[in-house]
């Protein structure tokens, strides 16, 4: 009886013809001059045409905040939803249409404060969508209040004497929520960010990317230790699958684990390269340990913390429907007729 097929048959654009320009909208970009969001937008627009996906199959979903203006600047389908709820909206999109490439753009307040619940649940469900969280450790759009990732003591408009709440660690939370792809990069680190975005795009399941982003108006320099030329090599460590953890200008320093699995910074030459902690992005324990490395005692890790495969929510949903269809084939009329009797 469900013969009606009212859904259009799409004649898709050939993705190989797409360029960066195809992803740029005619809308004026309204971020403050100098905002880190510009760089992130540019990297995303560069990566999109390389993924072999027709432009019309991308959907960008956002919540509320500076970062959430993102969909307006992408010449794709987009929903600018309400504060914190983008993962839920995107889950509905993907559950209906697993053929689409769904990207959620959110911020630290949007994802971890008002939307903390959805953040956690989208990760555990492993809905096949990409979740880009721009972390600037501040509320920008509401003009400068401390956020759930601001450090203790942060003086902001609502905390004139400094904030007294301890920040959340997004990577650790994502691990706790059993996320299958978890990574971190920087707004200004163009090539690194592009690589991470590509890997996220290839991942089947929720791919969470925390992107440190400078808000030059309300929290300028929050990451300068990690981005300035003089300091960055001593304070950032790039984690890579199968490689020992090394950092420093000449990669002279490394991370090793002591007998109780507590990480420590060591001098590679004297300690021995073969005794360094070799990263494994499929190891949950490795990810947990590395997610706890914080500045200034440790270099801040960037790269892919975790990449494992687990069936995505949408794939499992479709599978259940397919299996159900193979079983009993009740029609609506048969369901209506259930328990019937006839009055003559």
């Amino acid at each position, binding site marked *: 009886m469900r013969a009606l097929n*009212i*859904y*259009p048959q799409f004649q898709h654009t050939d993705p190989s013809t797409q360029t960066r320009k195809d992803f740029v909208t005619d809308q004026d970009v309204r971020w403050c001059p100098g905002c880190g969001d510009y760089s992130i937008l540019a990297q995303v627009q560069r990566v999109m045409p390389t993924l072999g996906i027709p432009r019309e199959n991308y959907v960008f979903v956002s919540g509320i905040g500076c970062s959430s203006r993102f969909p307006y600047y992408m010449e794709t389908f987009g929903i600018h939803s309400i504060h914190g709820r983008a993962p839920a*909206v995107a889950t509905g999109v993907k559950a209906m*249409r697993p053929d*689409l490439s769904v990207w959620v753009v959110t911020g630290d307040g949007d994802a971890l404060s008002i939307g903390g619940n959805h953040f956690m649940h989208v990760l555990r469900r492993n809905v096949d969508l990409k979740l880009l969280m721009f972390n600037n450790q501040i509320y920008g759009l509401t003009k400068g209040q401390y956020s759930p990732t601001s450090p203790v003591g942060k003086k902001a408009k609502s905390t004139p004497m400094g904030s007294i709440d301890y920040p959340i660690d997004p990577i650790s939370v994502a691990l706790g929520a059993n996320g299958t792809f978890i990574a971190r990069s920087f707004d200004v680190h163009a090539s690194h960010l592009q690589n991470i975005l590509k890997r996220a795009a290839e991942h089947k399941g929720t791919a969470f990317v925390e992107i440190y982003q400078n808000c030059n108006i309300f929290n300028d320099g929050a990451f300068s230790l990690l981005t300035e030329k003089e300091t960055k090599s001593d304070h950032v460590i790039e984690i890579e699958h199968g490689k020992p953890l090394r950092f420093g200008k000449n990669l002279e320093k490394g991370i090793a684990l002591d007998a109780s699995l507590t990480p420590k910074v060591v001098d590679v030459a004297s300690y021995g390269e073969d005794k360094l902690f070799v990263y494994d992005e499929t190891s949950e324990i490795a990810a947990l340990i590395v997610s706890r490395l914080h500045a200034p005692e440790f270099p801040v890790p960037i790269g892919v913390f975790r990449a494992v495969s687990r069936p995505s929510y949408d794939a499992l*949903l479709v599978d259940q*429907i397919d299996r159900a269809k193979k079983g009993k084939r009740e029609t609506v009329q048969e369901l209506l007729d259930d328990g019937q009797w006839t009055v003559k």
Partner: protein
Amino acid sequence: MQKVVETVSTVAIRFAGDSGDGMQVTGSQFTDTTALAGNDLATFPDFPAEIRAPAGSLAGVSGFQIKFSSEAVFTPGDAPDVLVAMNPAALKVNLKDLKPGGMLIANSEAFTKKNIDYAGYATNPLEDGSLTGFKVFKADITGMTLKAVEELKLNNRHAVRCKNFFALGIVYWLYGREASHTVEWIKSKFKDPQLCEANLRALKAGYHFGETAELFDRSYEVKQAKIAPGRYRNISGNEALSLGFLAAAELSGLELFLGSYPITPASDILHELASHKQLGVRTFQAEDEIAAVCSAIGAAYSGALALTTTSGPGLALKSEGIGLALMLELPLVIVDVQRAGPSTGMPTKTEQADLLQAMYGRNGEAPVAVIAAKSPGDCFYTAIEACRIAVTHMMPVILLSDGFIANSAEPWRIPEMASLPKIPVKFWTEKEGFQPYARDENLARPWALPGSPGLEHRIGGIEKEHLTGNISYDAANHELMSKLRYERLQKIADALPPTEIEGDQAGDLLVIGWGDTYGPIQAGVEAVRKSGSKIGHVQLRWLNPFPNDLEAIMKRYKRVLVPEINLGQLVKLLRAKYLVDAKSFPKIQGQPFKESEIVFAIKQILEAN
């Protein structure tokens, strides 16, 4: 002993016991069997607040009332003629409703000192002469049940649990009912052959007890009602809503998506739809009410017939999401199975107090279509109508049901899918001339699915420019768009058929109701009309917008009365919009209206000057 058979036209029975006693099963079995016997009927299951309150406590009493008749039945009945009380607490809670001279069947074994104390009786009410105004039948239901299943060597707990079927057996005999439907039901329900056999034996033993024991000197016959020929089934409101949504999906060709968070009394819709994946239904149990509505919005954007189901507290949480759906102009049906509020209120009790929340519970000027179902069976058609409006007008629609309609059942004429009108849906596919907020004759914008080449566009909660949908803070545009959002609702009213008036088409009094008050108002109006007053009855299906002819209809009567299970919400809307001196008749006890209450209110207003 030769027993007589007495013919009666209408009977109301209430089964009452502990929440673990299986009273709801007993009630629904009696309902099915009675429907098969050709009576008209209405039911009212009354659940306790607790899933399993301590055995024998007042809080744990669960009740199920059914009225059946050889005449038309509009309500489950005011005062029952028969009360089956499985323990002292059930007696204590329900005796006040039993008709004077009514029949009380009490499970005497449960009237132990402990249970009597627990129910708050000083002495055993079965022994102390306090029940002289009733026909009391004491039967050791538990003891006889144990005896009936003795040979099966069940443990005591399992054996005792069969007693509801013993009680049902007695009532089947009393009203000359065939047990065959229940026999089949027990066989399909109890997979364990021992338990199956035990319940069958209990049922049979109860029936034979009625027949042979000297306790009862007569049984009763209720003749078949005059019911239009056709195929029938029993249906509850939540079942009818679920089937209505499945039907709407088929009629429109859309795939169904439900985003929902468990909440009493709406969860059954989630359960029902989750069990029909073979029809392509996608159900998503969200992490909270907000995610439930937001996932449905995402699904609607992607081309689903999208639903979210909840009750009052959940509707409050969904407010911002509904406002978003309104701005995005996406089709979405939000079901609120109302319960007594505010806050947590009384989750298992019914109420109609979310009307103003549905109308106004959002920030900004946010008009949303509101439709209400008036009976269990009507839920089916209301679901289809809500879906039709949502997809053809591209807007959120709030569908109001309530705990009473949701759980009570009525015999229902089965519709033929082939004869129901299709729901026309068209997706926009043309690149040429595409504007996200262009409008058709319904003022609906195009539904353009992601995946459509050349139709890439962005929508959001920020005010948008007329036609283009681009962000706009322009003063005149905001006024235009705000007014358009109201005009869009008016388009629904313009297409409505003339409002149906039952009873007199003009005269002394118009009674206006909405939702579950339909049955009691209908019964009350019919009762008073017999004495010559000219009374009309309108049960509003659309509450936003109101039908265009409502004002003229009201003017044809001297007075307007609005009974509601709240403190007067529809009446406020009517008075504000039409400057009509409509009088409120409110009730807020977590219970539906009784026919007698409506009769009282009508007489009162007719006598007042």
